[in-house]
């Protein structure tokens, strides 16, 4: 962007002021969650309420652990999110390679179906998905959470864009000259070259699986065997007025994800933005 372009925009100071206010609004809930989680419920109920961090986090966490199997549900979530992320990356990347670089008969048609289904509200499929899981005997098990996550066409769509633009045909041709078949081109050329896109998709899939609520709520019929978000909601129902305890649970449930995001945010946002700019 040129200097002239910038000088046409609002003056820097006002822009920063507005942005800082927006940032405060954006991060305030995180701050206030910590305030609530580290104080007693009585301190929060007080008028004026306590606005600084308190010493009661451990007590609150202990109450959480007495009420629900918090770490169990966290492990469940971790397992489901990891497995589905790895599967999504593998299944989607190899299909994306085929779509991006080979004009096989039916390619357009097959890809078109994906695009259409990406726009449908997923609730259209939920009742039959539930019935399928019932017939398979998977209701109440973590297995039930994997296939619907895999059936999402978004990853293929996103990776295909990246592969068709980001992996030069010359390189694939060279690999072919050297006698690399489809699988070896995929493994030795495409996968290494799409690492940023895979990182983005991986974080995205993991976050989605971690935060998913509706499908686990429906499919995990056994209240003993649930994921984190369902556990949070249950705790909220069970201790609806005991905010400090519920918020302590919210805090430890959200912290890992916020940390992961903070670590990879630059790449994550750049990945999304770069796609748009190149678009």
């Amino acid at each position, binding site marked *: 962007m040129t200097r*002239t372009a910038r000088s046409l925009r609002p003056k820097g100071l006002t822009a920063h002021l507005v942005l800082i206010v927006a940032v405060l609004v954006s991060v305030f809930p995180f701050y206030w969650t910590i305030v609530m989680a580290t104080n007693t419920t009585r301190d929060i109920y007080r008028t004026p309420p306590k606005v600084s961090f308190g010493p009661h986090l451990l007590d609150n966490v202990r109450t959480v652990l007495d009420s629900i199997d918090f770490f169990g549900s966290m492990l469940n979530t971790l397992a489901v999110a990891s497995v589905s992320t790895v599967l999504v990356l593998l299944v989607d990347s190899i299909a994306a390679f085929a779509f991006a670089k080979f004009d096989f008969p039916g390619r357009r048609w097959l890809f078109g179906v994906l695009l259409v*289904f990406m726009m449908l509200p997923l609730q259209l*499929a939920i009742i039959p998905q539930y019935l399928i899981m*019932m017939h398979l005997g998977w209701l109440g098990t973590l297995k039930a959470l994997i296939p*619907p996550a895999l059936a999402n066409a978004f990853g293929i769509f996103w990776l295909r864009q990246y592969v068709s633009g980001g992996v030069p045909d010359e390189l694939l041709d060279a690999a072919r000259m050297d006698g690399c078949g489809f699988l070896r081109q995929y493994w030795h050329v495409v996968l290494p070259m799409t690492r940023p896109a895979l990182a983005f998709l991986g974080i995205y899939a993991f976050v989605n699986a971690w935060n998913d609520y*509706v499908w686990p709520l*429906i499919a995990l019929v056994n209240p003993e065997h649930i994921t984190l978000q369902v556990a949070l909601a249950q705790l909220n*129902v069970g201790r609806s007025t005991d905010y400090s305890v519920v918020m302590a649970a919210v805090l430890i449930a959200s912290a890992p994800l916020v940390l992961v995001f903070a670590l990879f945010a630059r790449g994550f946002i750049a990945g999304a933005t770069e796609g748009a700019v190149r*678009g």
Partner: protein
Amino acid sequence: MAAPPTTGPGSVAVDATGGGPGRPRFRPRRSAPAHHLPRPAARAARRGVLSFWPQYLAISPFYLVFGVFMLWPVFYSLYLAFHRWDGIGEMQFVGLQQFHFLMDDPVFWLSIRNTLAIWVLSTVPTLLGALVLATLLNSVRRFKSFYRIALFLPNVTSIVAIAIFFGAVFSNNFGLVNAILHMAGLPEVQWMSNPWTIKLVIALLMTWQWTGYNMIIYLAGMQAIPGEVYEAARIDGAGPVRTFLRITIPILRPIILFTVVISTVNGLQSFTEPQVLFGSNAANANLGGPGQAGLTTLLYFYQSAFSNNDFGYGAAIVWAFFVLILVLVVVNWRLVQRGRKS
């Protein structure tokens, strides 16, 4: 919003950037590379179907899962909508009866009104706010990536956590908001009892979560506008506001159109927010709070299908709802398109 099990914030985000389905306007730029399709593709024309077996094999794992867990379910739910079934007993064909019943069901229409109200209350401030913030962010040089990360953060937190938080802060008796009102000498508000404040809180929650996400999309679009365009405007004597209205907005129109479509599809699917906010109301756990003011259509769908085991009616609700979304998307699309002509 992050409609399970798949569609999520991020999903849309990038989908946006790439130009999703049904939006061919985005695609030409992006899919341009696909046109000078690699030499392998050029050779393709001369090859038979069978010679592509590695490619078919490569896409087959996905299509297998997709066919069983997405394609078939969508059609089967349409089939279910013409039946009466509790999932255990005999399935009974009832023709259009479920839809007739739906038309006369006041709760269904209430849920539609609630959903639309919440959608308008959240989408308008979200998109306008995102546009303003993106413009400001595009104008500053320092701290850019800090702002982006901080403003995007709400989008990666779970709706359950956010809903619990908003429930605590807007609580009728002890919430932070009422405490502040009290200290300021203002009357407290029964946020969780009044039908409009219930919708307002849900809309606020959604706005908080989605503004940064839309901002990132707009920002990406703005960064793609070449500086010369602005230079030309400056030489012609256009001020910042005029430049914004006459240059930035028209160039961003396809992206704005995209975000409007996505906000329509996602914003109408609110479920988790009211479900968690009013989940503690044991008597009517899934009915969306006092006066059913937070009963969105998907909440009603969930209630019918999974609390009452009325799968036929649930399927009818969700299909009727889908048609409504479709109509709104088309109307919005037309509105934005007409805006261009005038």
